[in-house]
């Protein structure tokens, strides 16, 4: 009987320790999912933690450095010129679909100078039906897919 009590106490202690550690580590590693306006509304609270910023790439905001290793662009709430935006700085090469007006999710941190630094850039997929037109070459078709009316998906 005594052994069972010892075992039970040990088990409860171990389970408690696991719970405390797990919840602690969980709290340290939460990633917030915000839109540009939500991020800006957080004020200083947005500086520091890992954030997933979701929005659309603002028109005319994509700027590469000379040898195409660094990229700056703006992520906005929507396509309207008045939409709030956050400037993003990325060392990651974006995927093929990356273009103005496409929905993106960037993961990174927001710093005091108001720049969002990311090391992870994800593009929202759209799966709209679009067969190649009669007489359209592969290049033209692919180009038409990429230049298709951008959708601000969220």
């Amino acid at each position, binding site marked *: 009987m005594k052994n069972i009590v010892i075992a039970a106490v040990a088990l409860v202690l171990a389970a408690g320790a696991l719970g405390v550690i797990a919840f602690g580590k969980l709290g340290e*590693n939460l990633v917030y999912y*915000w839109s540009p306006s939500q991020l800006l509304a957080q004020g200083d609270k947005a500086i520091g933690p890992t954030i*997933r910023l979701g929005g659309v790439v603002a028109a005319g905001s994509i700027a590469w450095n000379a040898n195409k290793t660094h990229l700056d662009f703006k992520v906005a709430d929507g396509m309207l010129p008045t939409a709030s935006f956050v400037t993003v700085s990325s060392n990651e*090469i974006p995927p093929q679909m990356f273009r103005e007006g496409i929905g993106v999710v960037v993961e990174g941190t927001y710093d005091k100078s108001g720049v969002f630094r990311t090391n992870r850039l994800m593009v929202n997929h759209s799966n709209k039906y679009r067969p190649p037109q009669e007489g359209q070459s592969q290049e033209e078709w692919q180009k038409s897919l990429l230049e298709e009316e951008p959708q601000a998906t969220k």
Partner: protein
Amino acid sequence: MNATLGYGLVLLGLLCAAFGALVGIFTGMTRREGALPWVQRAVYGFSASMILANLVMIGALLKHDYSVKYVAQVGSNSTPTIFTIVSLWSSLEGSILFWGAIMGAYLFAFAFIHRHEHGRYMQLSLGMMCAVATFFAFLIAGPANPWGPTPNPIPTDGPGPNALLQNHVLMIIHPPMLYLGFVGMTVPFGIATGALLRGELGDAWLVPLRKWTLVPWTFLSVGIILGSWWAYAVLGWGGYWAWDPVENASFMPWLAATAFIHSTMVLERKKSLKLWTLALALGAFWLTIVGTFMTRSGVFNSVHSFTQSDIGPTFLVFIAVVMLVSIALLALRGPLLVAETHMESVFSREGSILLNNLVFCALTFTVFLGTTYPLITEALANKRISVGEPYFNIMALPIALLMLFLMGVGPMLPWGEANPKTTLRQLAAPAAGGVLAVVAWKLATLGASSAGEYGSGTVMAVMAFGLAGFVAVITTRELLLPARALMGPGTNFFGAVVRSASRAPRRFGGYVVHMGIVIIMVAIAASSSFKVHASGTLKPGETLQVGAYQVRFDGLSSGTEPHRKWTSANLTIVHPDGKEVAYAGGHGPRMNYYERQTDPVGSPLVHELVWRDVYVSLLAYDAKEGSASFNAWVFPLVGWIWYAIPILVAGSLISLWPRRRQLLGGTAPAPAEAAKA
């Protein structure tokens, strides 16, 4: 026509399952054993109608019968035949229908193999399995009905299955493996709840309970590894595991089932831990249902959108029902299962297995917490957050190291109580093995880390190597020692090993599986913490250095296949010794353009070598300038994660093999299971 026939078969299946559940459980509880043949017939009826319904659907897909809603949803005239068949499980409704066929196959196999068993145990177990089958048949008949009519006008062509599905052959075999693993847990659930309903776990059922868990466990293991291989070979983000909810959904039931398989050894040997073992079986089944819900209801896109999915609410109700029934059965009937022995010491085989169980439960809890926490915060506080990968790594890695340690110590300890002196003596060789493994790794990578050929690694990874060496020595000793005892004049060593394996297949197979797991753990540690990454935009003729390898870009090429067009980067991998391997004409990393998808799907180049992979994915290209951007990695040992699959399967098959005594005794459940696996 197809729709009517298919839907009719599903309704028939639903009827049979409901009949089997009601009759099985009712007559089982009221001790009317004469009703068993009726329950068996209901099971056979359910199995036949579900399998036939799937054949009808495959027929409709092949004939491009767009009047069937599901065919109009995933079919396409230009999809190659093989992908047309595979599109049976490419989308929600079809995959649930396919689920029904697998359920039918399992229930048929169980009912048929144990057809000579009498008694209400069989009625209760079959009844409980039928109850689960009823739920899935209801799902197919109602919320996830693939047979509905297509709104007029009926199209002449469809969009085709998801492009990712068409992009790799692994996608053909990976989902069925997972389904076979998930659905198969219904059988141990049935056996366990049958035992609880009867209030007694008969000795005759201990071995079948273990074996019927080992079958889905094997499928689940293979499915998980194939899934990670698929993510690695297809998705191109340079990894194979990201603690994604979909991955966790398959990992949690695997953890619970693994714990269960271990505790059945204590159950068989010592006739104790009965309630605990059954609780693990119920838990593993519950986690498969939760996992299906997580992957199939779209709940992870947004908590608030899942109610719009057709199956989300139904599943949630089922999850609650299974949980309540399980808890009620364990609480009300559990006390009837009396342990026949008590544990003498924690310092023993049974002690180490119990400890192993607790560690597995701890990991399951950790993963469960991290996976469901975002759902709970979104549902309660309407905040969208996710739990970062670091949480899972920080929590899981130490637990995994502890598991590795127990995997070594456990097999060394005898049943009953270990003698500390003997144990210490036996520890010498394994400890040397551990040190040797670390030294071997250091020698193999001597100078390589500083030269940038490998990543710098972590302390945990080196600990994993050491523990792996420790476990490998113990496992090899356990595998071969019995054979040495059998060696006599005239027998060679190989013959003795085979003979010792056939005398104790469960034990031998188990250690073979352990060897496979050790290989996987080493491969994970090496590939995750010693990888090297480089990225850059190249013009033709330029190279990118990654580790000791050079990736040379030789220009773009493009081409057409029946169902897609592609643009590919021609690459040459230059080995450190100057050897060049060229990948041109679509064999390099590429972008595939499917006819009816706007976004291209990338395929990375995996330059597979025995001890490492050079992995290059094409991020973007500029056809005008002829330049392309790449992400490149060198992953040491990564391939060994998937090379270990045959070892795991072989070990499981050996374990499932019936012992000679059982073959003569008449209750031989295993040959068919083994053949199936």
